[in-house]
């Protein structure tokens, strides 16, 4: 405004240097400024400034920018928000027991409600740091949450977790397209396959790998052709993904090739599997075979590696460079063969039961890669019988090997809890606990809690593994066990205990889980 600018100019330079010569003032201001200008120069300047600035401030209207986007439309048909009580408990969990959130989100989803919008900024910040939180949060945040995640660049990662059949997701970033494919595969796998095939040539290796990985959802025979072709991809990661998936596809040619290799190269009692004595028939025959198996000493498992890998071997992913200790690429090859061979081959070809076969395998020079491969196969082929047998055969000292970890999910609850007890030491029990999501079966909860409290009571110093176990029990234990846990923890707190901090936090976590789980009567 010219009037104001002139006033500022004079104030800047000083009234002793320039006179006050103001441009005409609008309406009501004019007589006021005329009157003010009559005084001494400095007073006149200040008085005019007071009038004009007051006039400006009082009369200012904010602009109506046309670049503004409209308010977001209300989202219809979404699940209702969590109740105020649930919201309050969730808030408390964010502040004091974030480990309880995953279970709470699943419960909320089951109840048909969604996480309140107001909590999401904090939760997105948590999920940015903790990957495990993302899928349950994405499932529980509803369409409102998905809308919010799209509003901010550092929240968009959540969109890669939200299952969607909205075709516009195919225009999004790689994570969005991958999640779209995953969701689509559950409803129309052929369409998903066509989309991937359609964009295959143009996509960079990382995208090809991620899109191919989505085939694990509803993996079926119809996928085989595409996966076989992907074994020839120029990217190593894509090839590895294809090999991994084909190895899991029951009845695939790939599995057949691996089985053939197993038959040719694995020896039992010196003879190739393909030539092993057939399964015995008749009562006496079976008895004899069982007797032979039970002796054990005579049964050996061996591996006769090829002198070098053929082109077909390399295509199927049998590495020729290996970082494994010991026998190098040969061991890696055995592992790959074992992980993709249908597990029934071993028992059918040898006529041995699972336990007997594993007994023999454990004595082999090749036991490390063989057992690694068998574990991977048990997991991929979802064979609880093999999982149990492998678990039993390995022995406690091997529990820390991470590859055993995921297998425990296949074990029945009774076995888990007895294993937890048998583990005896907190740092081993924790390996079990970490693999099982909340809530644990009651016997397992009881066993681990009893063990942890026992250590806390009797051992004079603080053991960090035990503190971690106490916290894990509180985070994952059966809800029904809450009262017992609280009682034991409170009793322990009344003594002078080194575990005070862990017990306080554990009590709080378990209490919050218990309260969230309880639904008050309407």
């Amino acid at each position, binding site marked *: 405004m010219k009037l104001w600018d002139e006033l*500022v100019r004079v104030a800047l330079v000083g009234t002793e240097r320039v006179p006050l010569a103001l441009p005409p003032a609008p309406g009501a201001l004019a007589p006021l400024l005329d009157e003010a200008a009559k005084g*001494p120069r*400095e007073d006149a300047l200040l008085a005019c400034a007071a009038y004009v600035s007051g006039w400006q401030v009082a009369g200012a209207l*904010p602009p109506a920018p046309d670049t503004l986007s409209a308010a977001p439309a209300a989202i219809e048909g979404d699940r209702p928000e969590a109740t105020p009580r649930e919201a309050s408990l969730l808030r408390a969990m964010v502040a004091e027991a974030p480990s309880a959130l995953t279970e709470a989100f699943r419960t909320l989803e089951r109840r048909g409600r969604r996480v309140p*919008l107001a909590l999401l*900024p904090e939760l997105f910040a948590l999920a940015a740091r903790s990957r495990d939180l993302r899928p349950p949060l994405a499932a529980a945040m509803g369409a409102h949450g998905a809308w*919010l995640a799209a509003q901010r660049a550092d929240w968009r990662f959540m969109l890669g977790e939200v299952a969607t059949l909205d075709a516009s997701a195919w225009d999004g970033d790689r994570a969005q397209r991958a999640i779209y494919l995953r969701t689509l595969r559950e409803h129309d796998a052929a369409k998903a396959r066509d989309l991937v095939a359609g964009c295959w040539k143009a996509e960079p290796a990382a995208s090809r790998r991620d899109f191919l990985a989505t085939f694990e959802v509803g993996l079926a025979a119809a996928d085989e052709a595409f996966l076989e072709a992907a074994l020839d991809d120029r990217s190593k990661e894509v090839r590895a993904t294809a090999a991994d998936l084909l190895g899991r596809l029951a009845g695939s040619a790939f599995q057949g090739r691996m089985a053939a290799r197993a038959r040719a190269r694995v020896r039992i009692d010196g003879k190739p599997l393909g030539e092993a004595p057939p399964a015995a028939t008749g009562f006496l025959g079976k008895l004899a075979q069982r007797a032979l198996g039970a002796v054990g000493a005579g049964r050996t498992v061996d591996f006769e590696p090829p002198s070098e890998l053929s082109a077909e071997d390399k295509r199927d992913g049998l590495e020729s460079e290996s970082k494994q200790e010991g026998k190098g690429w040969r061991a890696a090859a055995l592992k790959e063969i074992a992980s993709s061979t249908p597990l029934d081959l071993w028992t059918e070809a040898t006529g041995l039961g699972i336990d007997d076969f594993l007994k023999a395998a454990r004595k082999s020079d090749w036991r490390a890669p063989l057992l690694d491969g068998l574990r991977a196969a048990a997991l991929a082929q979802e064979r609880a019988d093999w999982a149990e047998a492998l678990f039993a055969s390995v022995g406690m000292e091997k529990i820390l090997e991470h590859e055993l970890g995921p297998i425990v999910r296949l074990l029945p609850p009774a076995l888990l809890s007895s294993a937890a007890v048998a583990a005896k030491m907190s740092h081993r029990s924790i390996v079990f606990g970490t693999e099982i999501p909340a809530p644990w079966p009651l016997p397992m909860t009881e066993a681990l809690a009893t063990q942890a409290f026992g250590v806390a009571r009797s051992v004079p110093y603080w053991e960090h593994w035990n503190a971690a176990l106490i916290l894990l029990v509180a985070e994952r234990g059966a809800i029904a066990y809450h009262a017992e846990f609280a009682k034991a923890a409170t009793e322990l707190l009344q003594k002078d205990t080194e575990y005070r901090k862990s017990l306080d936090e554990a009590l709080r976590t378990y209490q919050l889980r218990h309260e969230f789980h309880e639904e008050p009567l309407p």
Partner: protein
Amino acid sequence: MQAEEQDIPRAVGAVPPTFTSEQVIALAPDPASASAGRGLSGPSKWVTLGIRGDALWGECQGSGKTPYQTRIDLTEPAFKCSCPSRKFPCKHGLGLMLLWVDKPALVKDAEPPAWVAEWLASRTERAVKKQERAEEKAQKEADPVAQAKRAERRESRVEAGVAELEVWLRDVLRRGFAAAKSDDSESWHRMAARLVDAQAPGLSRHVRTLQEALSSGDGWQSRALRQAARIHMLTQAWRRIETLPEGLREDVRAAIGFTQSKEEVLAGKAVADDWYCWAQDIADTEEGVRAQRLWMVGLKTRRVALLLSFARPGTPFEFNFAPGMAHAASLAFYPSATPLRALVKERGEAKQHRAPALDATLAAALGRHGEALARNPFVEYGAFAMRDVRLALAGERFLLVDGVGRAVPAFGDTEALWRAYSATMGRPAMVFAEWDEQRARPLAVEADGVHYAVRAVEQP
């Protein structure tokens, strides 16, 4: 003032909780206390629990032999606990209150035990004594001769200070801001100190603000001129103070640095209403003291009141009103042409209520501010209590946009604004914001009947 029997209002019979657990947590002095308080909100921690009227009490088993005795007067709320903690309220007070809010069925109506009754009685006694002391003090100061002498002395000191300031300010404008900018800070410091000596601390602050404006970056020239004009208005108003209407006279005196005693204000007329507490804003001041602003809007009178109180960290504020609720109270306003600041004369029950809005468009809200400016040119900020207004993103910044598309910049903690944006989904809602004539600072929003403080996390 006549001595009256102070009757602390008490509800008859059991009081169902009118607080929410968020409001209780907001009373905590720091997040660690809030957390500890929650840890003590489980029934297994409390050996005794009871309530009668506004008195809530319990005994909490600690690590020692004897349990801690915790008492709460729900009218304020006020806390008293036998634990050694210096925090206020302590974790036991918070835990007890949370327990009662969450599971009122567990707290039975009962005859208060001796240790509770004694505390209540001593509170009544203290309130009465406070009243008596205030009257004594008023009587002493009411000694007309001494009072008049003191007032006269101050007036002449201020007069001298104002005269010096006028001369000094004219000099600044004569030489120009460009020259003043390169002055060393000593001369400014001297003028400011001189005004403090002249018992005009408000004027001293204005001089310091002008000095800061000179180096305030982009647009400093306009800012400096506005501030200089404001000082000029004040000095001229002082010269003519007798001719000004009464309210404006008080505003001029307040701006110069004259304060009014609380007793005087409380002795004046009070406005009774159900006051909705829109927002609570706590900030740390330079002197290490915490300042609490409570913004209240009267449901019937539609007036805005600002309750200002100060406290050292760890001590409670004088006023405690839970945001998001309406509180029956009598507020006594500091005299002004545009009364805003107030004190609590009496208070009653709180109840849940929808947030009241004063305006539906920015034009109306700014118009209201303009009217206030016309009555009192020394007003420095205003408050918006608006409906149908939304937070919108313009690049990285937030705007407050009304129903006809006008927008003002919204400022504050970024994460806090994002949380408010999330809670409202960027859709029209009720918003309360402070207005400094350039930007709006949202302090609270209400969407779908739920009240949210504009804070990054739901913690003080």
